[in-house]
């Protein structure tokens, strides 16, 4: 038997058309299940509307605004999508000093990668993972963004090697999940460290206006390596 849940909702709300009323009443006369549902729904509706408004955590505003940078002109974000699209056409490789012993690889060639395309980190870039015994906080992220400005040496992808460690794959997958598989710029550096005590990946992106224009912003995101959620953010204009 089909049950007229939509019409029963209208009946509850007092918005049932006159023309439907008789049919719904006739159904209720013969359907014990719907009669019980209607009684339950009346109680459930009252109960749901009785729930009090809860105060959000006192630090929610600080967490959000702090993670969003909280100051300056956020023009970087407007260009992220454009930059990502442009980067698919124009391969840009970033030389990464102090990356450790693992070679860094950039560009769209996923040869050797274990990543599914849908799980690729933003812009499908492959980088090695820096291991750092550092506990970052918001200020440290901002400092990192500043320091990465001077490191952002742009070259072509011709000399890039294409080896990616399994650890890098896992880190890339995690960072990609944190951004819901959306493009947020050109990933240039990936650091495994801590953020405010929590195991985290620190991902450095270059973002710009696209259309062949050079990046104009360094964006640094912290994502939990445990559940791949975003923890914080900082940016610096180049």
């Amino acid at each position, binding site marked *: 038997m089909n*049950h007229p*849940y*939509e019409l*029963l*909702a*209208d009946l*509850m709300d007092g918005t049932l058309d006159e023309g439907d009323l008789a049919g719904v009443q006739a159904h209720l006369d013969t359907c014990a299940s719907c009669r*019980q*549902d*209607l*009684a*339950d*729904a*009346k*109680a*459930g*509706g*009252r*109960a*749901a*509307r*009785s*729930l*009090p*408004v*809860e*105060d*959000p*955590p006192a630090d*929610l*505003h600080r*967490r*959000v*605004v702090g*993670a*969003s*940078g*909280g*100051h*300056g*002109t*956020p*023009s970087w*974000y*407007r260009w*992220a*999508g454009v930059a990502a699209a442009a980067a698919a056409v124009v391969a840009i490789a970033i030389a990464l000093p102090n990356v450790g012993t693992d070679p860094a690889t950039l560009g769209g060639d996923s040869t050797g990668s274990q990543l599914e395309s849908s799980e690729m980190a933003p812009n499908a870039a492959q980088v090695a993972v820096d291991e750092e015994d550092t506990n970052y906080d918001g200020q440290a992220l901002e400092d990192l963004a500043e320091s990465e400005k001077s490191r952002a040496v742009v070259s072509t992808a011709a000399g890039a090697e294409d080896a990616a460690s399994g650890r890098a794959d896992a880190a890339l997958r995690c960072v990609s999940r944190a*951004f*819901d598989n*959306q493009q*947020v710029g050109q990933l240039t550096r990936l650091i495994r460290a801590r953020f405010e005590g929590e195991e985290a990946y620190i991902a450095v992106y270059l973002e710009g206006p696209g259309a062949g224009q050079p990046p104009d912003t360094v964006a640094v995101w912290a994502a939990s390596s445990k*559940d*791949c*959620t*975003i923890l914080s*953010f900082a940016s610096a204009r180049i």
Partner: protein
Amino acid sequence: MGVSETDERLVRRFQEGSSEAFEVLVQRHGTRVYNLCFRILGDAEEAADASQDTFLAALRKLSTFRGDAAFTTWLHRVAVNACYDSLRKKRRRPLLQLAPEEGDERPEPSRPAPDHADGGVFSVDVAEALRQVPEEFRVVLVLADVQDLPYDEIAAVLDIPVGTVKSRVFRGRAALGRALGVARGEPSRASRTSEEEA
């Protein structure tokens, strides 16, 4: 600062480079987003994380907001997606669960019907019962009866037909009533009072 500004004006100012405008939006909608997440997820800490994810996602996506829908509708959509993401991560199950077959969604009462004069205690019971309502009904129920959104706006948030919204609201309410056990001949004091008032 911006108290009387419309959301759409604040969004425009943010798109023009004002980070202060985004802070006003967070301040204005923080409680609403948190309560949506809290009632869907049923956990304060997860709700705080999902709220933070909502605003960070909004920050990233605001450049694509063109005002085709009201900002609140758009923000609710972002928040619901953040909640689905949280539920998916926690339970490792598909993003959108199909509605169960008739009868499958009938939860057992969470506990004997409450008989509390204290409304606060009753609300805890409701919150516990709400967690037993199947996800696809709970989301719509929260949007309708907690957030007080009209059906057509819920349809826009979830991108489903209005008729489906009504159906899910009804089934969500029924599931909540069953979970509370207050409609099976054991009315609580709170519900009896409501009945008498009705």
